[in-house]
């Protein structure tokens, strides 16, 4: 058990200073403003700057292959959060690149990986379907073989970042009559292929995601990842990471659960509210002097700290649930001016709590809903058995 400050070597101190300077230089107010306006959670200029400076490769590669040491990786991760670096598209890119390296042909790796490290190539996830919801295995998007190419038809929801990416990591159904986990094949589909249409959708937190339509999209077999009908195996690895089903490292140099990045907005809301309640109004009265304010603030802090403490899959549920539970209280404490969003004149906490309130529903959905994870805790941690559902409806049409 250890929560101490990490003592840095001279070299690591230099790295730390360089990283902070780099982020200060490149993550400008303009980058943040554009991010808010587009909801892209991605900035191409910034991303290319990261690539050119070698940060993308260093972050992705293990230390043995020239990547960051554990301590530098952690510094970089924390400082990026401090600087509010847009994160979603690099997140999906890094995740999918693992599957490309593990399951892609040498030719495909050659085509993709140097561009990924340079920042020019970005990869997104084509998992969820309009009718599928959280169960990625209920895939209706079809891929049919035609000689050396595959013809893909279907549609995918929540392909976040597609409009800023060059490839989509796509789940397709190649054996509609097989059991669902033996029917899937994965492709890395070039997004400039004819027949692909990307349609933007804004979500309530202000971000942009996409629905992507695939109409007779022809994809060369070289873009297939893994064996035909073995897509479940290929997908599992990034999915495990996305679920947070990975053990904590004993050196304490990483988050103890996934979603810590998202939790950052809740932490910021709590800290801002805590500062705000001590400011006297013109009559000298502080919000904190009202015991109902102090109680609600203290309870919110307590619940947040518990959520931040919960490990791995427990933590991800705790964080998403707690964001939902405490953001209304934080807003209530700050009063009507907490209804004003970021950048609005007189916004109580610069719109932080109201953002958490709008963001929390997404955090409890993407990468699997809260129910998926409660199922997993029940089944695998408590041994309660597989959830029992009523039998499927007979199709009448």
């Amino acid at each position, binding site marked *: *058990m*250890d*929560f*101490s*400050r*990490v003592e840095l070597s001279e070299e690591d101190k230099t790295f*730390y200073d360089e990283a902070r300077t780099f982020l200060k230089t490149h993550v400008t107010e303009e980058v943040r403003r554009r991010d808010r306006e587009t909801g892209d959670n991605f900035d191409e200029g910034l991303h290319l700057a990261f690539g050119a400076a070698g940060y993308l490769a260093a972050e992705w590669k293990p230390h043995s292959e020239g990547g960051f040491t554990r*301590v530098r990786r*952690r*510094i970089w991760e*924390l*400082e990026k959060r*401090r600087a509010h670096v847009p994160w979603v598209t690099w997140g999906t890119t890094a995740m999918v690149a693992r599957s490309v390296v593990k399951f892609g042909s040498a030719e495909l790796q050659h085509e993709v990986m140097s561009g990924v490290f340079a920042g020019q190539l970005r990869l997104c996830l084509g998992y969820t379907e309009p009718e599928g919801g959280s169960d990625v295995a209920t895939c209706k998007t079809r891929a049919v073989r035609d000689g050396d190419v595959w013809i893909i038809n279907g549609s995918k929801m929540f392909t976040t970042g597609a409009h800023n990416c060059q490839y989509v990591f796509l789940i397709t159904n190649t054996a509609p009559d097989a059991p669902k986990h033996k029917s899937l094949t994965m492709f890395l589909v070039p997004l400039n292929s004819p027949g692909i249409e990307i349609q933007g959708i804004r979500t309530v937190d202000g971000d942009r995601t996409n629905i992507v339509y695939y109409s007779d999209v022809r994809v060369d077999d070289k873009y297939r990842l893994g064996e035909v009908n073995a897509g479940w195996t290929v997908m599992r690895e990034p999915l495990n990471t996305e679920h947070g089903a990975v053990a*904590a490292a*004993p*050196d*304490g140099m*990483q988050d*103890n659960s996934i979603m810590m990045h998202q939790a950052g907005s809740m932490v*910021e809301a*709590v*800290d*801002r509210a*805590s*500062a705000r*309640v*001590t*400011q006297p109004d013109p009559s000298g009265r502080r919000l*904190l002097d009202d015991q109902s*304010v*102090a*109680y*609600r*603030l*203290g*309870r919110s*802090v*307590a619940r947040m*700290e*518990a959520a931040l*403490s*919960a*490990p791995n899959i*427990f*933590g991800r*549920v*705790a964080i998403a649930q707690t964001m939902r539970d405490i953001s209304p209280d934080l807003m209530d404490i700050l009063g009507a001016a907490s209804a004003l969003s970021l950048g609005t004149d007189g916004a109580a906490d610069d719109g932080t709590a109201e953002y958490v309130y709008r963001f929390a529903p997404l955090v409890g959905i993407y990468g699997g809903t809260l*129910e998926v*994870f*409660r*199922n997993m*805790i*029940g089944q695998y941690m*408590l*041994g*309660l*058995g*597989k*959830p*029992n559902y009523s039998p499927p409806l007979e199709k009448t049409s």
Partner: protein
Amino acid sequence: MDRFELRRLDYSLSDDHVDLQTAYKQFFKTHCSIETVRAAEPSGFDKNLWERLCAMGATTMALPESRGGDGATLVDLTLVAEEIGRSLAPVPWIDHVCAARLLARLGALGADTAGVANGEQLAAFDARIDSAPGVRLIPSGSIADHIIVRDGSKDGAVVRLTFGTRPAKVDNIGRLPMAWVDPAAADTRAVVGSGADALAHYQRALDEWRLLTAAALVGLVEETMTIAAEFAKTRYTLGVPISTLQAISHPLANMAITVQGGRNLARRAAWFLDNEPDERPELASSAFVFMAEEAAKAATMAVHIQGGLGVSAEAAATAYLVRARGWPLAGGDPGASAMRVAEIVAARESALRGARV
């Protein structure tokens, strides 16, 4: 505070921690069955169990080596507290070690209190934050040899009281050896500290009590959850175990999340009190506020899952239900702890941001 500061985030237990945890888990498993718990309810205290526990070193461990103790860390103590909660052990260990440590910090472990270190004499204290003067409920007041309270005077005196005849136990939902104690009626009254320093030491005892009570509630919730889960796996409705129904499994999953979050929070709070006490003083109360609220909800759900069998006075589930409420409540309204958390965090954040807002 700087939430992006480079600190380790390592919650793992050392081999020594695991050995300690295993030893106490085994101790209570052997010596504190649910029948033992029930048998102690009239008095709220199992003297035999207490003597065995003290013989194991559970009280001396909590004192610094300079006071003849074994210098255990608060992290160590949370591990013991969790096992006390798991087994519902009818022993006032948390009250005693917090009071004994307070006396040690005040330099007030002398000839009169020679039996406190090894638990031959029991020490108790008023665990309320917002303690009012006059007659008050003390969680282990009916069995204590020494009762420590703040006397409410302006100079902030902390006094140690003794009673020739111990105050009478009052029945209570926590099944604690609780008593109404009138400081004015004590037979002896020794001032053991006064002024801001003494009150700060007393505050630390209040924090430690909340921390260890939170840890005990973690063990309590985990055990009642486990009992309910085992029941649900073997109870069938319409041909399926009720554990496979999400209306049952998801509340159980929520309890598991409470246990995991509360446990790690208590340990992190303990680590900071051990190593950097001024850095995160809000965490001990945070763990308490969280567990005080969640323990009652979890224990109620655990009863509910077992339905008509769960509500029976003989069911283990009801033993957990009453203590889940009664143990934290012995320290007064948990809302007072929430307000303390808010005061600490607000002071910290306003000091940091004051110049900017």
